[in-house]
């Protein structure tokens, strides 16, 4: 029983990870999060048929539905996992140190490789692409309705959880 479940879990993870890696290599400019969601939902029928495909037996409807839920939940974990290497400033700092000569950098050198201006400009471009804000030619930033909603949400969330300062 446990072996059967382990097979389903491992196959589900392997299938999603390999497909996302292959699609990301094929479409380098693509959005990896969209890829994960698409792969997770496209492959969910495989989980429905996992009893026949992987275990060589026919199981009841509820068990197969649970296999599908397991597959979707693992896709959700994969989505969360991806935010670590893709978005984390902290992990990028560690990688910059790893690839630096002697695995050491001064704050100034780190700033040259991965500095405030690069970080902020890139995030603003992404927020602009996501239509949270608009930037005009002179560098003036205007929040869109969506951006104002997000700003309100973060402000309210910080108040709710009593977060005094962050960043």
């Amino acid at each position: 029983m446990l072996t059967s479940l382990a097979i389903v879990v491992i196959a589900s993870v392997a299938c999603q990870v390999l497909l996302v890696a292959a699609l990301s290599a094929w479409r380098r400019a693509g959005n990896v999060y969209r890829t994960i969601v698409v792969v997770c939902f496209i492959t969910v029928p495989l989980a429905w048929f996992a009893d026949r495909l992987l275990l060589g037996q026919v199981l009841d409807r509820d068990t197969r539905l649970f296999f599908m839920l397991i597959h979707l939940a693992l896709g959700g974990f994969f989505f969360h996992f991806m935010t670590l290497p893709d978005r984390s400033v902290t992990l990028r700092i560690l990688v910059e140190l790893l690839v630096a000569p002697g695995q050491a950098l001064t704050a100034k050198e780190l700033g040259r490789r991965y500095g405030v201006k690069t970080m902020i400009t890139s995030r603003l471009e992404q927020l602009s692409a996501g239509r949270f804000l608009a930037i005009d030619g002179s560098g003036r930033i205007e929040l869109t309705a969506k951006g104002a909603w997000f700003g309100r949400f973060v402000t309210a969330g910080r108040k709710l959880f009593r977060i005094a300062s962050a960043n």
Partner: protein
Amino acid sequence: MIRLAVPLAGASAFFLVSLITVRLLRPADPKRFFLGYGSALLAVAAYVYVQLWPLETIDAAAGLTACLLLQALICLTMWNAFYSLLWGFSGGLMHDLYNHAALRDIDRLVRSYQGTGGFDRILARRLPNLAAGGFIELQGQTLRLPWKGRVIAWGTLAAFKAFSLGMGGGVK
């Protein structure tokens, strides 16, 4: 499918106890509490589930796995929302832009993040935590990578390559 009430109850309890903890106790490091609550509630969910649906068939075992994964995922999503949206870089930027109209200019915004000492606002918040966790060594203005940080950095670099993420860090 009534079994899905177990993870929903567990996730709701996680939200409530986390909210109460953060609002009333105001811990300096809430993630220790989140981890403790999340783990404890998973154990409770597993116990309750097994009492109601003993693990005698593959159906019951698959149900338990699905319920625990779902509960852990919902808790992780809440946790991630707390840290990524409320404490994260993009959320922080949007908070500053929303609340301070004077910062709605790229140069002024960048200047507001540049510290007066050796480290800017972004590094100043992260480096002491990394040093305290043993992921970097801070020697004056020089940052070094001990073995613990090297392991994490290698793993991150491997993910960059495997999923074609460039150099990550939110920079496209």
